[in-house]
């Protein structure tokens, strides 16, 4: 019996190691996850994932899912663009630990209020023109932006590049996520 159990444990251990290393030694497949309360009463799950032939060549994906597992938002970029910015034909080596640190910081999103966004006064051509310093952008017109901003809605902001962020709200009319504004360069 002990031999059988020892054999079972050995098989389990082998299966476990195969599942954790499904790719070649050079590939980069990492994830980080965090729960936040944003879209409703039940916690949403924020997942950041890196995939690439090497960590320097990784594509990184950011996903928010509600408590039922339905995807609310997804965003993708390259690890290089999120950390360094711009392009590189010869990117420096990146370790799995560096990617893990980035993913952990990426899922550490900010949840605040749409009222924290800058006002877009009447008569000003664009949101960007309404704010000095940091550049703001929205695809909404002024009326819609101000209506949503002043409703003090739960807002989730995440990094969209090394120097910019995007802010999301749940549209109270459609009950679907909506990017209310982006800021940075």
């Amino acid at each position, binding site marked *: 019996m002990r031999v059988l159990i020892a054999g079972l444990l050995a098989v389990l251990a082998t299966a476990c190691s195969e599942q954790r290393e499904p790719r070649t030694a050079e590939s980069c497949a990492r994830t980080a996850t965090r729960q936040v309360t944003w879209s409703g009463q039940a916690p949403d799950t924020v997942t950041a994932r890196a995939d690439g032939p090497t960590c320097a060549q990784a594509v*990184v994906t950011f996903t928010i899912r509600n408590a039922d597992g339905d995807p609310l938002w997804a965003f993708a970029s390259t690890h290089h663009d999120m950390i360094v910015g711009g392009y590189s034909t010869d990117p420096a080596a990146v370790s799995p630990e560096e990617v893990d640190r980035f993913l952990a910081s990426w899922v550490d999103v900010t949840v605040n209020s749409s009222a924290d966004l800058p006002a877009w006064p009447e008569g000003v051509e664009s949101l960007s023109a309404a704010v000095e310093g940091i550049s703001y952008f929205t695809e909404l017109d002024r009326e819609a932006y101000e209506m949503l901003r002043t409703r003090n809605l739960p807002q989730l902001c995440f990094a969209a590049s090394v120097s910019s962020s995007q802010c999301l709200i749940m549209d109270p009319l459609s009950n679907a996520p909506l990017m209310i504004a982006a800021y940075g360069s």
Partner: protein
Amino acid sequence: MRAILFAAFAMLAACAPREQASCEVRFDREIAFTAPDAADVVTVLALGPSCEQLTGVFTLSDAGGDPLWAWAAPMRPAFGDAFAGADREAVRAFLERWSQPTIARTSESPPWPLTDNLVTTLDQATYEDIRARDLPMLCHFSGTGRQACVFWEPAAAGAGHYFDRDAPEAGSTTP
């Protein structure tokens, strides 16, 4: 004996991956975007807890594996009924079609001022400069009737987001 069996179950539980995707489908396609004879690769990946709850990732890489462009969205909100009741075969068929972007030149893009069906975050000077330089342009579906277009900047060896537009009427409105 019970302790050993308990340990075995504990090991089984520990084997569970951190993100269990019960529907994950990937498709790769070689295309020539950065140069007429380039062996660039489009990779489309869909993953989620079920085939109706997928997020999709569209990636363009050069022949050396360096990523040039990446884009993602929840599939069902973006592409609608194509993912209602979808199974792996349906998802794979969709990804095969999604992996076929339109390759064109920036000189074919509309002149400034832009119409309502085309949105860019670029300012007028940058947009017109990219258009005048007649650079390679790739457009992929980003939703039903909607496309995201990127340009290739050979001087920087990188691709950038050019604009989002309604899909041309002559073509299909969905992959």
